[in-house]
């Protein structure tokens, strides 16, 4: 068991889902996730598996303190997403989810840059199918933009890896100094982390996926990138300020956003900003903090998106301006969502408290006091938008449109219940979380000073919300992000370029059934990989002719 790569179990599960009748899909996904979780927990610290590849030795499996917590929570969320989407996921959607999970686990257990790139692109290729799985023109357009953004990121990553190999002769995935080649690798990682200003693909695409697809997307793409940054660029000071910018910009958009699933998408940008900032600090404590935050975030953001997805599943709507008054018919969903909301807000007794306190203390202790206060400002916005505004406009107040909420499948509620239990368990017993961190944690979050400080922050944020609540009344609006550059600027430059950002007619959509009918499913990954390789070659050749 020790040498069995957990990603193989998830990728095997993806194949099994495609081969077996649809009714087996739910059980196969859950069992695959459980087997992968068992395989991760059975891995021996320090174990490696190498593979020869055209004269290079690739480390396809590296087990250490940083990779294991990410692999563990990736396998755990696969189980929860499998339960959540038990009755709603289509066959190819479920296979794509399992393949995305396998690719995510592959990234965090990879010991060399080429293996990282392989799993990275597999993750992009399969995760975009989760966006297309919604089968709407908006999802198809958002999926194309998602693919385009990640194509650029993948090309940057591959170009950087090849350049790095040419410079150093090494493919080892270890901490790197910033230079020409590693800058390209960094850009590839930052794009996948949705770092400002490369973030627009995330709130654009995630809310357009299916209810279960969004849960899967939220777990793997940005958190794989957080792992990659922690592995490759710990202590890079630039990341501290990129992270702070992400935390603040994400939270401002979230406060303004009307679509509740897009609101949570902007919050992924914000929360990943906390992790990126901690990675930029680069101390052992801050890497523990970033890892703890990522671990808890996978679970509480998964729960939040499950709650918002349950609203969409039951009502067919996700805009706050069309919701309201759902509490009487969605009490359980509301309570479970609230567990996630209090976790992300860092309330004591919930998972976000020990996770955030660990990373915030490490940032402050390293002398980044300004960054620490700016992140506290973002924390105010988090509680304001996720725990106060979103519940107030979704489950309370008047119904803003005639909405009839249908009953949720029991497996959806069970999945949310398990995620809520995990968040409460880690909040009550922080050692459950701290015990899995890369290095030993000797931090106690439950001191009087820390508890009083966070309670005051949350209480006075609540008072501020009451005072300014009328300013946060939902309106049917849409946010303009940095995607303005490729969605609207072309139209201003000329009619030919305008087609780049324009909506296309439906027949052109690469819907899942059409992909399958046309034999496009095998073609799509090849197209993505081919495009990435060609773009990377252009970059490498360009770099090689530069003086």
């Amino acid at each position, binding site marked *: 068991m020790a040498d069995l790569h957990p990603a193989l179990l998830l990728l095997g599960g993806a194949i099994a889902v495609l081969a077996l009748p649809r009714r087996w899909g739910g059980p196969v996904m859950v069992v695959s996730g459980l087997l992968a979780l068992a395989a991760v927990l059975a891995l021996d610290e320090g174990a490696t598996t190498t593979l020869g590849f055209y004269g290079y030795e690739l480390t396809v499996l590296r087990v250490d303190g940083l990779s294991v917590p990410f692999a563990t929570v990736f396998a755990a969320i696969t189980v929860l997403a499998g339960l959540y989407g038990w009755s*709603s996921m289509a066959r190819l959607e479920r296979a794509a989810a399992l393949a995305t999970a396998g690719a995510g686990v592959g990234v965090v257990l990879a010991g060399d840059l080429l293996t990282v790139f392989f799993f990275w692109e597999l993750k992009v290729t399969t995760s975009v199918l989760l966006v297309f799985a*919604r*089968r*709407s*023109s*908006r*999802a198809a*357009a*958002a999926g194309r*933009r998602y693919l385009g953004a990640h194509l650029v990121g993948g090309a940057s990553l591959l170009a950087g890896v090849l350049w790095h190999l040419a410079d150093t002769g090494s493919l080892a995935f270890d901490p790197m100094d910033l230079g020409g080649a590693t800058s390209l690798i960094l850009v590839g990682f930052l794009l996948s982390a949705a770092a400002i200003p490369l973030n627009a693909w995330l709130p654009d695409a995630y809310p357009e996926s*299916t*209810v279960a697809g969004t849960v899967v997307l939220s777990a793997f793409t940005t958190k794989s990138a957080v792992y990659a940054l922690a592995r490759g660029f710990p202590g890079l000071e630039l990341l501290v300020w990129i992270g702070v910018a992400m935390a603040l910009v994400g*939270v*401002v*958009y979230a*406060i*303004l956003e*009307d679509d509740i699933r897009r609101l949570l998408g902007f919050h992924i940008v914000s929360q990943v900003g906390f992790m990126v900032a901690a990675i930029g600090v680069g101390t052992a404590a801050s890497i523990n903090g970033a890892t703890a935050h990522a671990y808890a975030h996978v679970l509480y953001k998964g729960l939040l998106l499950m709650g918002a997805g349950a609203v*969409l*599943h039951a009502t*067919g*709507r*996700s*805009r706050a*301006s069309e919701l309201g008054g759902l509490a009487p018919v969605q009490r359980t969903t509301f309570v479970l969502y609230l567990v996630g909301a209090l976790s992300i807000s860092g309330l004591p007794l919930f998972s976000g408290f020990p996770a955030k306190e660990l990373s915030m203390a490490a940032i402050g202790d390293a002398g980044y006091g300004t960054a620490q*206060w700016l992140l*506290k*400002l973002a924390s*105010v*916005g988090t509680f*304001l938008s996720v725990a106060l505004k979103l519940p107030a406009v979704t489950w309370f107040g008047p119904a803003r449109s005639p909405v009839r909420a*249908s009953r949720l499948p029991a497996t959806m509620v069970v999945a949310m219940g398990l995620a809520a239990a995990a968040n409460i368990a880690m909040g009550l017993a922080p050692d459950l979380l701290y015990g899995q961190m890369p290095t030993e944690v000797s931090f106690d979050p439950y001191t*009087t*000073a820390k508890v*009083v*400080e966070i309670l*005051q*922050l*949350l*209480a*006075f*944020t609540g*008072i*501020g*919300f009451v*005072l*300014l609540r009328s*300013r*946060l009344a939902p309106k*049917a*609006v*849409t*946010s*303009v992000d940095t995607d303005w550059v490729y*969605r*609207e600027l072309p*139209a201003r430059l000329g009619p030919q370029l305008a087609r780049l*950002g*324009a*909506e296309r007619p439906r027949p052109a959509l690469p819907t899942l059934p059409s992909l399958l009918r046309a034999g496009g499913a095998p073609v799509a990954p090849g197209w993505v990989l081919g495009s990435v390789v060609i773009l990377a070659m252009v970059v490498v050749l360009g770099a090689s002719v530069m003086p």
Partner: protein
Amino acid sequence: MIRTVAAVAVALVVSVVVDLATGAAVPGRMALFSLSAVALLVLGGKRLAAAGLQRPAGTRPGELGDPADEVTAHG
């Protein structure tokens, strides 16, 4: 209005008392910080929204309404 101001003032006093009792470095700091932060984020955000950060729904390229969105949201 007066009752609201009085309630906030009482909350601030309680906060200062708690900080004094627990030996916080600057009593009332987190309370004032949080209130200011909410005002900054909400009012500043609204100003940014009015300056072009937000537009009426369905007015961006690629945001055309699609009846399939409603139908397929459940799956």
